[in-house]
């Protein structure tokens, strides 16, 4: 089967690109669409650094053959800030020194976005479980957990409505 044209809705914008069979969503985001926030780490789904939201749910983009999510919505770190302003999660990561080398940061923020969209008031245990698929090799998990809890507080205080619950799982 030759390369084909695939469509995705990326950060709210319809995008089209040409993909060889079996190309991963990560490769398309980085190499066809120029969205390089999602990092290529282990390519096995173990490190979580390529995590993006597919239909509002965290997914390791390295494990998704892009044809299988054609016409679905994908959200990346590039779609988080609006009008050049960091959102609560991003600014909380900065303020709480939760970024360190930065390689895991995009994936960490995307799982935090999904968590807070579903649960505006997560417990510390909820946060730890949510990021359990994301490896930080600076071993700075503590500031990340604090930053996500702080972001939840900031969102509640700002009256940010929880996002649309992800009713449909990725595989639909």
């Amino acid at each position, binding site marked *: *089967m030759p390369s084909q044209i695939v469509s995705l809705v990326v950060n709210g914008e319809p995008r089209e690109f040409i993909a*060889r*069979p*079996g190309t*991963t969503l990560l490769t398309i985001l980085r190499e066809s669409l120029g969205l390089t926030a999602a990092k290529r780490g282990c*390519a*096995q*789904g173990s490190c*979580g650094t390529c*995590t993006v939201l*597919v239909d509002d*749910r*965290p*997914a*390791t983009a*390295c*494990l*998704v*053959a892009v*044809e*299988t*999510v*054609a016409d679905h919505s994908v959200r990346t770190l590039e779609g988080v800030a609006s009008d050049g302003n960091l959102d609560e999660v991003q600014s909380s990561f900065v303020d709480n020194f939760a970024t360190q080398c930065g390689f895991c940061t995009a994936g960490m923020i995307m*799982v935090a976005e999904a968590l807070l969209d579903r649960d505006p008031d997560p417990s510390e245990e909820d946060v*730890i*479980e*949510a990021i*359990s*698929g*994301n490896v930080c090799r600076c071993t700075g998990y503590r500031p990340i957990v604090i930053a996500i809890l702080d972001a939840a507080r900031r969102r509640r205080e700002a009256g940010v409505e929880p996002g649309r619950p992800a009713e449909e*799982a*990725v*595989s*639909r």
Partner: protein
Amino acid sequence: MIQAVHLPESPEAAAVHSARGGWIMGGGTVVMPLVNSGAAIRNELVSLRRAGLAGIEVRDGVARIGAAAPLSSVKEHPGLGFLRPALRTIASPTIRNLATVGGNLFVAQPYGDLAVCLLALGATCEITGPGGRREAPVADVLASGVAEGEFVTAVVAALPEPGTWYYHKAMRRRLNSASIVTVASVTHTADGVVTSTRTALGGVAPRPVRAVSAERLMRGRPLSPEVLTEAGQAARADTAPFDDAYASAWYRSRVLPVHLRRAFIG
């Protein structure tokens, strides 16, 4: 090099591609790492994502779970609350959004903890293939797989009665870690004495196994520390432990009785 990714819209259409040698893929958590590293054993993939196999029905005490249902859907289903603690021990929420029930039956140990649960539940697999549809006990599918061109479309299991479900998994970390020993069991007692038990083990053999030797020792006796220690030691006869990066075979065998006991009485 992958030459094609098929996205059939029905199990029958998937069966056509499977019969032609296409590699059935659920969420991709097993297949895609091999594709990414160039180690894929086939050059055509058949994704079940659009085949209408992601539904979960719980009715009249029976659960029918589509093979392409992601583990997160199982974890969140209100009718399957007894499985929630088990699902929480499998990978991370991110991977559970992708990984499917059907795929879990075919992963190599020490992964596949849901398969251990399904074995304890005595689940049945619905299978589609070139010869049409058939059913088989999950124990058979775990022991010998399915025939060429066949794939699992759903698993069906009776819900355990309240107070009869036991699950415990020993792992290196508290979250997102593979099994050292997994124990799942449906065990009925009357007046404190075991009347029936179906107990499955993960992490201690190449595939999930029934702990038949332990079951034999437990029947007709109380779930006491002494009986469970004896049963746990006997369960070694049902296992074929292996060395891996998580634990040695020696260690797995050594701690099996402890974790079997903990599954029942903490």
